[in-house]
């Protein structure tokens, strides 16, 4: 288009970084709400990369997929928070270390 275009590899590196931060968060944080946020971060890394690839290929399919991911992520978080509330009512905590009735 013009000289100001950012190469797609930059988006790739940024997405991989965001995704890795999300993975680390899921693996090492102990609060269930923070883990949700980290999963959202992983999904948003994917969204960013999809949008970048979509522009690269000149194909709108990738951007439509982003909307699907957003909608599904919203549904997932709605169910997830409902489950968290259910657990909070029983054990008064959202720390996943309390959930050790079943051994890993």
């Amino acid at each position, binding site marked *: 288009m013009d000289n100001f275009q950012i190469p797609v590899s930059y988006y790739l590196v940024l997405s991989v970084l965001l995704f890795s931060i999300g993975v680390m968060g899921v693996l090492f944080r102990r609060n269930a709400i923070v883990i949700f946020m980290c999963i959202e971060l992983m999904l948003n890394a994917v969204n960013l990369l999809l949008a970048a690839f979509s522009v690269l290929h000149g194909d709108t399919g990738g951007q439509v997929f982003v909307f699907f991911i957003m909608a599904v992520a919203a549904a997932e978080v709605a169910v997830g928070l409902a489950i968290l509330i*259910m657990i909070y009512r029983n054990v008064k905590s959202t720390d996943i270390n309390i959930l050790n009735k079943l051994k890993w």
Partner: protein
Amino acid sequence: MEPIIIVSLLGVTALLSEMFGFKKVLLPLLILGMAAALCFNQSHWGVNTSYYHDMLLVNNYSVAFSSLLIVVAGIWLVFSGPYFTEIAFRADRAAIIMFSLTGALVMISFSNLVMLFLGIEILSISMYILAGSNKKDPASNEAALKYLLMGAFATAFLLFGITLVYGVTGTFSLAGIADHVMSGRQQLPALMHTGILLMMVGMAFKVAAVPFHFWAPDVYEGAPNEVTSFMMTIVKTAAMGAFFRLFSTCFAAAGGTWPLILSVISALTILTGNIIALYQQNVKRMLAYSSIAHAGYLLMAVVAMNQHSAGALLFYLAAYAAATLPAFAVLSALAANGEGTGTEAFRGLAKRNPLYAFAMAVSLLSLAGIPPAAGFFAKYYLFVAAFQSHYIWLAITGVAGSLAGVYYYFRIITAMYISRGSRDETPIHASLPVRVMLLIVIAATVILGIFPGLLADYF
């Protein structure tokens, strides 16, 4: 296509039954509707039709797996009467079951990665709710949360894989990706191979393959018995069907390291599942580990990837479902009777309810792969498929794993028939539909075991 519409409408019907007060006839209505869906589904046999700009492709593979899913769900509904006894939750639970079945049907007829993702999520989000449907039970709560966190985590990997594949090929359509793979086989970029591996990791999480299995025993143990049975049959069938469809249509020709990595995952899954199952005292948890081991056998079909794989996969999943459903029907009956799910509960069952004991024994024999039951030929076909694709070491691992399996399955059979404990000998009552259905499913197991060609030559 019609089965997907009918089953999702059945879900809506179940929600409406709350409003219009026909909850009493809901379950028979659902079974009737599923029978209709099955008929419509079979009418597509032999014809390839694609829907919605090539989003879904109905071919023989998807017809066969859809039929299996619908039949298994119907049998599950008959066995799971107690799960729907509580009238307040009946409509909700039935609706979520129907929606998850819709997701399963989408998962095995997709021809676009968008539909794969949507199918997996429709199925998974429904299952997160069902796993936690026993709201007062902390184990059920914990199962729901673990399933949700691990499921969402796996989905993110799958999506990242899909994105990388899209970045290389510029399309989500399976046919487009397959074209790209075929035309550029020699110079596929590293990004493509990374994408394939990430998608494989995502799917391996969903089918609970080692080393991505650690959520499965907890979720299977914590969820209500009927839901565990649903997860082991319907969810596993859909996930394996989708896994195989994805890799056979798109990535079989791509080469790279995925067949090697997947064969190692398969062998590890077989060994780990069987060995840990040996040490379980709780039958439900033992079945959970055995289900992990069975996922390992099933992955052999994806690794082998030859003309016998699809038939072997279908036969194995059918045999596995036909063995798991009765086993869980018996387990649920004992648990509902207040006996728990330990091996202890099965002591002297042959005296208390001969039919239950017999059904459990046949199911366990089938799971172990002992000849008169269907499980023998199921394993045989998979091992042959692996052998033909020169994965001889994998076939040998499979045989070794199933030998270990014989031990822990027989422990329960001995407890039921031989050991005489101090347990009371009051008979356990089984309702008429459950008794009839148990007999039908056992008969199916034995008939498939004697005439395996009925299903294995389906394709």
